[in-house]
């Protein structure tokens, strides 16, 4: 990463008359739309030559940090290595040019890829069936809740208007439930970070449609009362929803279907190694247990008796959540990852991710406050530095880490602690990387005691430092035009 800010915008390289495009000659007679239907405003796009475009984005990329740059211990985000073969398979010259509506006789390979991944995820999730159509984790949550809604509707069970969400849940859980038209009932966490089962049970009733949980939860602890919870939830007629954000440590150990969950989503961009792309595209397939398949969204990929594949729409489905079959190029990457690892290595992923997390936790707990005891799973949360007298906050520690070439952990989430610092190393990091991270975290704790100002004024070695967020929100400047 370049520590000097590149900083210029493509608009600032524009020069009237330059061009960066190459198009065939127009052999047709020109036809104009009627004037009242035509664009009359000028189009303010830059005019730049091709080399300038290439240099601009190359230089700009040098101010970015990715998984390929360095260690990315971002809690709940599972920033594992993104294998290169996956990208190459996704860029297939034929498959990447298929039109969704061209005859299925000409897209059998694409449908087989979809179907094969669907089957693999069903096995990994312990579910009867999957759809790959949702575009992201939050979209998967919404689709999963719609599936649950459609299930209750099919039974004319109209009274179920609420969804239970733990107070430690990702913000998307309550937001997805609200978009799906549900009211939210929050359930408390115990001091050990797990769900208060008594509080949960007291909130169950004929008005509850579903309980959303992630396991392990957002503090990295396994909800060991999950069989008891699932039993009580099912007894009241509600369904169990599994937020797959934390699925990685469960690979090879325990399947959501076996824990008693009815509906789940998987973030292919977390557990199945597809790149995050600076915020997307992701993919959020959802799986359902037997008896709920008919509610999955249209369109569906099915295998016919003669071994060929087709795309169908069902009346019983919850509706459509995507025009076609989701982020297909992301799905290709996930299948490539599953095939590259194979059954035997997938069985090891969870355990190694958990080992890496515990290794860091144990090595730092004398200097950072560990609010919850016991072996963590893929991630854990420190409640800031142990020594609170220095005034050095979690934000300061996170920013100081940037000076040492590490991405910051997730900070101030979960909301259970004031100074949450959530660390998830993933299984693809070497022990040497973890040791280096541990050494830096220890050094920062030392600096906090000896020279707190050094930590509080960090970062010092990044292209920019201390951007004024307040001013950005107070007087939004969201376009180039607003800068002129």
């Amino acid at each position: 990463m370049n520590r000097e800010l590149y900083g210029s915008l493509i608009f600032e390289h524009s020069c009237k008359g330059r061009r960066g495009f190459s198009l065939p000659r127009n052999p047709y007679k020109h036809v104009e739309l009627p004037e009242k239907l035509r664009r009359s405003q000028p189009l303010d796009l830059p005019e730049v030559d091709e080399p300038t475009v290439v240099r601009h984005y190359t230089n700009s990329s040098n101010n970015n940090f990715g998984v390929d740059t360095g260690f990315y211990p971002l809690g709940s985000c599972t920033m594992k290595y993104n294998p290169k073969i996956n990208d190459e398979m996704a860029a297939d010259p034929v498959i990447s040019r298929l039109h969704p509506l061209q005859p299925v006789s000409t897209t059998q390979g694409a449908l087989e890829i979809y179907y094969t991944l669907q089957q693999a995820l069903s096995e990994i999730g312990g579910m009867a069936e999957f759809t790959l159509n949702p575009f992201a984790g939050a979209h998967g949550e919404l689709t999963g809740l719609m599936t649950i809604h459609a299930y209750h509707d099919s039974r004319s069970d109209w009274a179920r208007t609420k969804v239970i969400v733990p107070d430690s849940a990702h913000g998307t859980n309550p937001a997805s439930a609200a978009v799906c038209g549900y009211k939210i009932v929050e359930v408390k966490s115990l001091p050990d970070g797990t769900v208060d089962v008594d509080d949960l049970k007291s909130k169950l009733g004929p008005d509850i449609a579903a309980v959303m949980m992630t396991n392990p939860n957002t503090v990295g602890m396994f909800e060991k009362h999950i069989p008891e919870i699932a039993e009580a939830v099912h007894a009241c007629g509600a369904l169990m929803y599994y937020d797959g954000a934390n699925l990685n440590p469960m690979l090879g150990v325990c399947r959501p279907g076996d824990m008693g969950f009815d509906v789940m989503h998987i973030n292919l961009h977390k557990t199945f190694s597809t790149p995050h792309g600076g915020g997307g595209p992701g993919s959020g397939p959802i799986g359902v247990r037997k008896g709920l398949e008919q509610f999955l969204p249209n369109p569906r990929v099915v295998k016919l008796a003669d071994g060929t594949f087709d795309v169908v729409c069902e009346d019983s489905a919850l509706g459509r959540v995507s025009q076609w079959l989701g982020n297909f190029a992301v799905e290709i990457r996930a299948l490539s990852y599953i095939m590259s690892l194979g059954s035997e290595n997938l069985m090891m992923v969870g355990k190694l991710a958990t080992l890496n997390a515990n290794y860091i936790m144990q090595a730092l707990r004398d200097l950072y406050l560990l609010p919850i005891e016991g072996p963590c799973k893929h991630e854990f949360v420190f409640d800031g530095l142990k020594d609170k007298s220095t005034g050095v906050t979690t934000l300061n520690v996170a920013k100081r880490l940037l000076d040492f070439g590490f991405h910051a952990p997730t900070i101030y989430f979960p909301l259970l602690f004031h100074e949450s610092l959530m660390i998830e190393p993933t299984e693809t990091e070497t022990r040497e990387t973890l040791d280096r991270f541990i050494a830096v975290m220890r050094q920062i704790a030392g600096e906090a005691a000896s020279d707190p100002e050094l930590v509080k004024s960090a970062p010092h070695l990044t292209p920019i430092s201390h951007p004024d967020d307040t001013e950005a929100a107070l007087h939004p400047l969201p376009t180039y035009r607003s800068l002129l």
Partner: protein
Amino acid sequence: MHRYLPHTEQDIAQMLEACQAKSLDDLYSDVPEQLKLKRPYQLPAEMSEKEVRDFFAAMRAKCTQLVCFGGAGYYDHYAPAVINALISRSEFLTAYTPYQPEISQGTLQYIFEYQSMMTSLTGLDVSNASMYDGATATAEAMLMCVAAARKKNRVLISATMNPAVADVVRTYARYHGVALEVIPEKNGVTSRAEFEEMMQAGDVAGVIVPAPNFFGIVEDYTGWADLCHKYKALFVMNCQASALAAIKTPGEWGADIAVGDAQSLGMPLNYGGPYLGYMCCTNALIRKMPGRIVGATKDKDGKRVFVLTLQAREQHIRREKATSNICSNQGLMALYVTIYMSLMGPEGLKQVNELSADGAHYMAHHLTETGAMHLLHPHEPYHNEFLMKLEKVTADQVLAATLAEGIFGGVKLADDLLLIAVTEMQSKADIDRYIDIIRKLTTE
């Protein structure tokens, strides 16, 4: 172990010791025994990189690339070589959401450029950092209308909207509890009379119309925004992004929100995704807009820098009170269209639109001359897509005959209705070949 898993036996032993655990299973002592998976996954064993490559090559062999006259919301435009080279840079590709602006200026800067270009394309004031696709962006616009209107719950959508997009909007409406009603179509365009009547019935929070519409027609929305505003409803336009360089913009029509798919900006068809949903709106609505927004500010040394801003609207702060549950944007695809628009500039986009629209008119004219078909709505202006009413042949016959020549002949809407799209990717020779096939079909 595997090449993605760096742990040696010795690493594992020493790390376990540091964790005071005897085995990897010890780290799962809190997982009840009866929940544990006691067998390996029933999945294929590890494949070498070559075997993975062979598998996907076999899948490719079961697909056929066709000369594509299919549109219906997905358009086969040319993707300049530069784009793939740049978006493959792992600094962009393998980054997370830019929550740490100090080491994410690359991402934040292109999102800012993206927002700037999209506002110019749509003629509106602000853009978010992008959404999943055009259909979900349209559904989000519907939710935004209802949230902005507070008590009002009716949203109107034109019957000329792409039906797959309308289906997604309908799904969101059904579960969110929005009364979504369809404004009927008349002669290929949205019925103005019925629109007025439905507005007069009251309680309308928003109106959603397409441009061009599903049949390729560029509808005249003169006065629509005024009528919406008279009834305090928001006017939402779903527009094909590339066409906005040629057709009257949402800003010029007086729309409050513009949404749609940006796939037409040179994005590979990719069998349906990933694409990009864009959303732009007026300044008045910025705090109601879902999704991320990047803004410019200064850092402590006075440098112009970019940050995620107005986050108080978003789910990680507002939880169930957020405008939307969206927690991502199509980052890499936003970079895609930003580079595309940088390369194309105003002149390139103009030429792409001319090639597409002129080619479509050439094709429609000569297909009509065959006597086998004619435009269903001959008096409505269209852009690069048109709806043919078939006379002497059926849609299945046309599709079979073109497919035999390696051509995807269009999207069948009924036995006698075929929707055909043209872009710069089909040469004049391709179009002539298509016309010849139809000629032969009718003389047989």
